[in-house]
């Protein structure tokens, strides 16, 4: 127990200055923008906390973005009278799964931050490297893999036309028509289908001797299998049967795989809340604003109901998660 406590304290100290600065900047800019509402930070246990406490105890912010999603899912379940649900948040880099049982999220008491133990209550979320931007690749034996390496947002999938040349899950979804190149992000961002096909042809189809569509199908099948495995980790391996759970999908890529995944695991129902791509949907439903911070990967995501707000937050735009 001494090791865990020391490790937690050290992690808190390491994160302190950076999170403290972030918290103060958020508060200042939000105030400067004339917002008078109270400001809260989302915590890893799914609850909110004022900035002063968050900056004192930054370890309570670890993975708070995904935790916010689960809290929002709990509220959806409450309103629908659903006691048991599995949440699946598929974004650009990962697929995060958690379990809601008897209307409550599963909470664990410690987590690992880059191999260091942090003891602090957090919503139990399993994360696998199967997001829209996860790269598909072939190993030396000819086996196809998805992730955990990701093309991220920059250069992003080949179809973004920003210099990415390696095939991602999103590229394969574009080829298979699961992502529509013309209406992506409401049509504001046209996807380059030819670039997606080139990437899949060069790195997958040609080496495997398959057609482009067949190669894309195999990547989608592998991504689905990875996601199904993550769901089994939170259910079957803990003595729960996925067939007793409803599947709540969110994240930009979540819905694109939702029904197929539910069918594979024999989950009877899929629910898609409004605005599923908002990374911490609970923030959208709250009259006060809240912001989330994911120090583990130095990524920050912010989201707010007020449209004007994201512009004033540090590293301003809410991350779009294709």
């Amino acid at each position: 127990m001494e090791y865990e406590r020391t490790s937690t304290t050290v992690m808190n100290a390491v994160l302190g200055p950076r999170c403290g600065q972030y918290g103060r900047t958020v508060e200042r800019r939000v105030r400067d923008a004339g917002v008078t509402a109270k400001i809260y930070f989302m915590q890893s246990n799914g609850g909110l906390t004022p900035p002063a406490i968050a900056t004192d105890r930054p370890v309570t912010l670890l993975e708070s973005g995904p935790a916010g999603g689960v809290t929002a899912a709990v509220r959806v379940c409450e309103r629908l009278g659903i006691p048991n649900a599995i949440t699946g948040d598929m974004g650009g880099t990962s697929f995060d799964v958690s379990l809601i049982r008897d209307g409550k999220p599963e909470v664990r008491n410690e987590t690992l931050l880059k191999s260091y133990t942090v003891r602090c209550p957090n919503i139990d979320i399993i994360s696998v490297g199967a997001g829209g931007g996860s790269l598909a690749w072939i190993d030396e034996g000819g086996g196809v893999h998805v992730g955990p390496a990701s093309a991220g947002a920059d250069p992003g999938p080949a179809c973004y036309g920003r210099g990415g040349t390696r095939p991602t899950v999103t590229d394969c979804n574009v080829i298979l028509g699961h992502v529509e190149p013309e209406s992506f992000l409401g049509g504001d961002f046209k996807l380059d289908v030819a670039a997606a096909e080139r990437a899949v042809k060069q790195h997958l189809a040609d080496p495997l001797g398959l057609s482009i569509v067949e190669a894309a199908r195999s990547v989608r099948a592998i991504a689905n299998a990875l996601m199904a495995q993550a769901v089994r980790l939170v259910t079957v391996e803990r003595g729960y049967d996925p067939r007793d759970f409803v599947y709540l999908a969110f994240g930009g890529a979540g819905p694109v795989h939702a029904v197929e995944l539910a069918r594979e695991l024999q989950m009877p129902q899929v629910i898609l809340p409004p605005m599923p791509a908002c990374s911490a949907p609970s923030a959208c439903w709250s009259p006060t604003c809240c912001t989330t911070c994911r120090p583990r990967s130095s990524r920050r995501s912010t989201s707010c109901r007020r449209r004007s707000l994201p512009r004033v937050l540090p590293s301003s735009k809410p991350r779009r998660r294709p």
Partner: protein
Amino acid sequence: MRDADVDPSKVKIERRVDCCYLAQAETLQIPIPDGAINQATIDTVAKGFEHEHQRHWNFIQPDRPVRAVNIRLRVAGKIGHHIAGKDVPRAETAPKAAGEAKIYLEGGFRTVPRYRRADLRPGDALEGPLVVEEPSTRLPIDVGDRLRVDADRNLIVDVRR
């Protein structure tokens, strides 16, 4: 809680206890029933532990004492409320497809109707195959899956077995 203006009558206090069998390293979290703690509470927790142990590890040891390692208190108050938003009334009674989509579903490429989520209204019900799209994502639904829109505008899909 006071600082966040949470209505005191809406504050929920939950108690949980981490339990294990004596000499066991792993604990399981068991809820403690509300109210004063007496013998009945302790019996309920012990029973809850056995039930959870059976589910998690698939065995119990009825003769072994159960140890309470940590007692946890969680004070939770809700702020905010769910905003479903308002819909602009729609002239048609049934949802109209915005176009078609070519998509690879079970068994190959198919051309299916494409609906915009913004055009859907509570109470709408549709049968797959179809796709629903919105600016940030897209939901493909295969043959035999049934879609409906609830009062909060959640999309609910009953998945074909």
